[in-house]
């Protein structure tokens, strides 16, 4: 694997770290299996790309993308809380709907951002090679997001959200409005995922309506790899695990694809992904089985 390919994998892993953080909030904190992310990731990319091309400041464009992602999360939450649709099904409905929404937003399946100003533009040409600039910049944003999520989850408000996912009946008895926590958590989760999409568009130079396929699997893979490696010893370690898991996942994929010996090609990506996630899911169980 070349140096550029390696740092490219790290960069992609950092972009998807936002997805991992979002998936952690939904799956682990709220216990809400949320497939909305397959739609909110490309939504973030689409909104950012279209706004940047329209001349909007890229930071503002990314902020709007987060709001759009939050709105998508709230739609899923409404379907689940207000209309009592099973959480998984509610998120699939939103995901399917978002495919059309994303096409509407972009007006076509693919928007290129080749010569447009992005959040990263000011940092190119400062002496560091581009393939270092991108992962460094994204790493900084990931750190900010992870610390924000950490501080939140250890606050009174965050504790209410964690209780909602862990024991909703107890949470209500403690005066926590569990419906509101689901709205809030789904909004936060999908805002993070949409920010991931926004950064994906800006680091890769395009937004594509199909780029969301399998986002949930990648996010979940990152969360599980992180848990497998670092265990569950507190929120901060779990969040660090999400980021680390996301990066390692991308490096593993890159390794698998670039090793000629295995004879894999780019189109095998989804198969390799599924195999890796299965492995990540099964390994901890095997290890526990061995210890018992």
């Amino acid at each position, binding site marked *: 694997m070349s140096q550029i390919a390696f740092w490219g994998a790290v960069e992609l892993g950092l972009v998807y770290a936002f997805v991992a953080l979002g998936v952690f909030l939904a799956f682990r904190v709220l216990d809400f299996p949320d497939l909305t992310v397959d739609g909110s990731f490309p939504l973030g990319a689409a909104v950012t790309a279209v706004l940047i091309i329209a001349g909007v400041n890229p930071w503002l464009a990314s902020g709007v993308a987060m709001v759009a992602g939050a709105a998508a999360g709230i739609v899923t939450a409404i379907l689940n809380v207000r209309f009592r649709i099973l959480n998984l099904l509610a998120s699939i409905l939103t995901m399917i709907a978002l495919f059309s929404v994303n096409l509407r937003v972009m007006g076509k399946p693919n928007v290129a951002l080749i010569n447009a100003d992005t959040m990263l533009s000011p940092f190119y040409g400062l002496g560091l090679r581009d393939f270092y600039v991108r992962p460094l910049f994204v790493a900084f944003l990931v750190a900010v997001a992870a610390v924000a999520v950490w501080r939140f989850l250890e606050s009174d408000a965050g*504790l209410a959200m964690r209780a909602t996912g862990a*024991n909703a009946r107890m949470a209500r008895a403690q005066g926590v409005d569990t419906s509101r926590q689901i709205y809030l958590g789904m909004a936060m989760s999908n805002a993070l995922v949409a920010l991931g999409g926004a950064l994906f568009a800006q680091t890769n130079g395009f937004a594509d309506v199909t780029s969301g396929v399998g986002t949930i699997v990648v996010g979940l893979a990152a969360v599980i790899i992180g848990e497998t490696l670092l265990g569950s010893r507190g929120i901060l370690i779990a969040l660090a695990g999400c980021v680390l898991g996301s990066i390692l996942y991308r490096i593993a994929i890159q390794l698998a694809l670039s090793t000629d010996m295995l004879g894999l090609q780019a189109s095998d990506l989804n198969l390799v992904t599924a195999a890796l996630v299965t492995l990540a899911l099964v390994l901890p169980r095997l290890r526990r089985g061995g210890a018992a």
Partner: protein
Amino acid sequence: MIKLDNIQVVFGKGTPLEKRALNSVSLIIEEGTFVTVIGSNGAGKSTVLGVLAGDVIPTAGQVTVGNTEVTRKGTAARAGLVARVFQDPLAGSCGALSIEENLALAAKRGENRGLTPALGTKRREHFRERIAELNLGLENRMKDRMDLLSGGQRQAVSLVMATLAGSEVLLLDEHTAALDPGMAEFIMNLTQKIVSERKLTALMVTHSMRQALDFGDRTIMLHAGEVVLDVSGDSRKTLQVEDLIAMFRRIRGQTLDDDALLIG
């Protein structure tokens, strides 16, 4: 003061499965009174507790807790007035959170929750002191996950949790039923101590007639959704478990086949 005014609860109204759980129950509980509630399965004990907690919204009647009318308020909306300990030790706390996080959650019962760190130094110290009072050694395990504790330890912590924030009434839903006899006794004595020290108004549902008479200031027996016995003061002091069982038999007009369970 707790006031139930002509409470009726009908489940599945208008369906073939219609069930009248409470049939015009009226009850006034003075502040600082510890009431024990007994009755056979299906008598309406849990429903009374549910009506007070907000889990059950009555079909008719009015519920007042403290000075607030709460008839139509949901569980979360009235949590500031009502503290609870559940029967199932797993139900009253979050297994996935640490002991101190559970306490932090309970300390803010019924209050707005902001972005302040849930476990500042001062709060931590306060929680530690409260847990140390239990003499279970748990003050050295404050960061342990709640699900590492035994059922009895969890109920003891739940009792502390129930008293961290103020309340108008403490609801105890057979909170010793899932424990071994030794632990059940420990929890009952702890309950007694907490209720009397803090002068709490409390309502305890129990299946044990012994417990119902040994603890508290007033005993209520429910049957078929109605209050059939309400004793306090001197008449309660002379009441024996045997009297209660005889009363049970008379009311049901049949021989109880589960005496052994009831005497417990």
